[in-house]
Every structure is written in structure tokens, then in C-alpha cells.
């Protein structure tokens, strides 16, 4: 069973490496969207510092959502998804393995790059860690929640727009908690409460999303 899941993760990482421009597009999108705001808002240090957590988080949501459209689409077209549905391991576990690989490729880079963007907004350096922690706990939840939408819209014409409409409202709690963690730390209130709630949200999503994704994939294969 573990060999099977490892092979799935390995396959996804290998595919991502062979299609590295796709992964790079997502990361560049994140960097560019966030960088546009200081340019558009003008050099007003206090304003930039206030909006920074929200902007970085919204850009992370959009980047996550963009990358999710391809999560199951190519496997659906070439028949590999059928083989995954008929695999010797529970589909929900395979889905977790795939979501994990996807997060390593398109979620983790956002976490790592976020301090670089925080510099552009003049965020105090003691907040970098909170920002990274909030993204570290939040982005896996975004990937898993978004994967439900990706599985539901599989094979639909214009699925990309529908995916956005389905998934973005579900991202709201993560956005509020994630940006709120940085705001709270900036106000000197401590970010523990927000980070704990983000952690709880991640546990909840990891528990229930794989079943929803697996069920949606089975419907898409009918």
C-alpha cells in the first residue's frame, strides 16, 4: 500500500519536473499579482503595511485555484484516471497522495517566497514567521478544498470559471484566519488563536475532503 502511494507521489513530482513551466507559471503569477499592488497604491508605508497580509493571502488563493484546474484533467483525458479509480488502494488515499504532491509543487513555493514579498510591503521582519506559518497551515487546506471543485468540474466545458465560483467561497474561512493571524501579530495580540484555528481547519479538511474528492471522481468516470 505504501509502495503504491509512494509511486503515485513520485509520478506526480516527475511529471511536474517534466512540465516545469506549468509550475513556474503559478509561482510567477503569485509573485506578479502581489508585486502589482505596491506599484498601484503608491509608496505609502502605513497603507502598504496594513494591506500586505490580505493581498498576499488573496494572491495565494488565486494561485492555488489556477493550479488546480490541471490536477485531474489530463489524467481524465488519457485514461490514467480510470486506472487510479481501479487501483489496489483506496481512492481517498490516492487522492491524499496526489494532493500532497500537488501542494509540494504549487503550495510550498508560495510559503517559501512569501517573506520576499513581505519586504515589498515593508512588513516588520518579526511578522515573516507568522506569515509563513499561516501559509504553511493554510495552503494544504486550499489544495484539498480546491481539489473537490476540480473533481466536480472534471470534463465540463468552461470548467475553469465554474471551479472559481465553486471554490472561492469555500476559501473564505482560510483567508480570514490566515490574513487575521498576521494582522493579530502586527497588533501585538499574538497569532496563536488564529494559527490553532487554521490547524484545526486543516485537520478537518484532511479528514473529509478526500472522501468528497473520491466520490466526485467516481461520478466523473460514469
Amino acid at each position, binding site marked *: *500500500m505504501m*509502495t*503504491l502511494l509512494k*509511486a*503515485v507521489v513520485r*509520478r506526480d513530482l*516527475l*511529471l511536474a519536473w*517534466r*512540465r516545469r513551466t506549468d509550475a513556474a507559471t503559478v509561482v510567477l503569477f503569485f509573485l506578479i499579482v502581489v508585486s502589482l499592488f505596491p506599484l498601484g497604491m503608491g509608496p505609502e508605508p502605513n497603507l502598504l503595511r496594513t494591506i500586505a497580509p490580505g493581498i498576499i493571502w488573496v494572491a495565494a488563493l488565486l494561485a492555488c485555484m489556477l493550479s488546480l484546474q490541471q490536477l485531474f484533467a*489530463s489524467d481524465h483525458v*488519457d*485514461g*490514467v484516471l*480510470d*486506472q*487510479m*479509480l*481501479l*487501483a*489496489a*488502494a*483506496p*481512492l481517498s488515499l490516492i487522492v491524499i497522495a496526489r494532493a500532497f504532491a500537488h501542494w509540494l509543487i504549487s503550495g510550498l513555493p508560495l510559503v517559501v517566497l512569501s517573506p520576499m514579498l513581505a519586504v515589498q510591503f515593508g512588513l516588520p521582519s518579526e511578522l515573516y514567521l507568522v506569515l509563513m506559518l499561516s501559509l504553511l497551515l493554510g495552503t494544504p487546506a486550499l489544495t484539498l478544498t480546491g481539489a473537490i471543485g476540480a473533481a466536480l468540474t472534471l470534463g465540463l466545458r468552461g470548467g475553469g470559471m465554474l471551479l472559481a465560483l465553486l471554490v472561492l467561497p469555500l476559501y473564505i474561512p482560510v483567508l480570514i484566519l490566515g490574513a487575521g493571524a498576521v494582522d493579530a501579530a502586527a497588533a501585538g495580540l499574538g497569532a496563536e488563536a488564529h494559527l490553532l484555528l487554521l490547524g484545526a481547519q486543516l485537520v478537518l479538511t484532511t479528514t473529509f475532503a478526500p472522501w468528497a474528492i473520491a466520490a466526485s471522481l467516481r461520478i466523473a*468516470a*460514469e
Partner: protein
Amino acid sequence: MLSASTQPLHLRTLPMLEAHNIEITRGDRRLFGGLNLALDPGTLLLVAGSNGSGKTSLLRTLCGLLMPSAGEVCWNGENVRRLREEYWQHLVYVGHANALKNELSVAENLEVLCALSNVHTSPEQRRKSLVQFGLSGRELLTAKSLSQGQRRRTILARLSLCVELPLWILDEPFAALDSAAIDHMQSVVGTYLAGGGMVVMTTHQEIPIVAPTLRELNLDGLAHR
């Protein structure tokens, strides 16, 4: 005679695939209904029928990918939609789409497919199987650069590595193959059946395969029942 405890689990009782009173509807169209079948080890079931008669739908239903609009498919007496991976670990399905990733090499693709069936193979075994299917020297090519026939051969190379699984469901396995590959495929399926495997297969070509038990099913005759 082996004692029960030393035998692999799937051989303790003879594996058996049954379909009870299956009806398949695609969209608004009822393809056929009232289909019963039973397969035991050594049986080859050839499914025939004109285009659109529901061959692929029947195969996908037997796999458990499609839900029949009536009736049920059972493995050893249990509904396959309830057994899920308990059933799928005994099964290899070759669909009409070649399940290959264009960016991965032939060897990598084969490795992933074997891993999904939870069949542990060494690189040497996989290489041997590819060579037997006439793909020697092409193991490291990406699937993108293969011809249609070579893509089919890559998918079929998985079969000779999965002979321990008791059921193969093959949708048009001979499509796009040349005569040498057809010959090899015939012997692979023949050996598997002689060893107690079960095969459900659709094909438009007249290709003789030696099987302990041969059944034929023509879906055109069922259409209006």
C-alpha cells in the same frame, strides 16, 4: 494438494465473476437489459457487437466504473461496488484509451501502471516484458514519441507482469497492433487462461485464442430484449 493456508488468498475459493440481470442505459438510451453471465477460472468471454452496442459500457460496468441501471456485478458473490479495492486488486483493465503519460518514458509509465495494481516488479522484469512486446531499445523514449501501435504494446506489456491477478478486462486489445504483436498477445492471453486466469475481451478482429472454456456474447441480439 496444497493446504488452504499456504495458498494465496484469492485461490482459496475459486474466484468467480458474475453479472445478474444487468441493464445498461447511457443518457436516455437503453443499450440492453437482462444480461446474465458467470465466469470462472480458465474462461475467455468474447464480447461482440456493432459500434455503439455497449461493449465498452459493459466492460466498464464489469470493472465497477459504471453503475448499471439495474442488476449487479458480483465478485465471489459480493457486489463489486461494495467490495471496491478488495475487487480491484484482483483486476487489470485495459481501456481503449492508452493510459500513458506523454511526458514519462515507456519504462516509467509501465512502472506506474504496475504500482497501481500493487504488483511488485523489478526493473529487469519490466524490461523483459517490454522486449517481448518488441519495444527493446525504446524503454527510455517518452510516450509522446511512440506510434499508436507502440503505445498499445506498452500498455499490454503490463499484462505479462500481472499474470497473478485472476481477472483481465480488455477493451479492443488488438487495436493498432501489427501481426507480430498480435501473435505475442495471443500467446500471453492463452498462457494466462491455461493457468486459470479469466479474461473478458472485446475485439473486431477474428483472432483465435486457445482457452479451456470459450464463451461468446453478442450484444446486438440483446438490444431489444
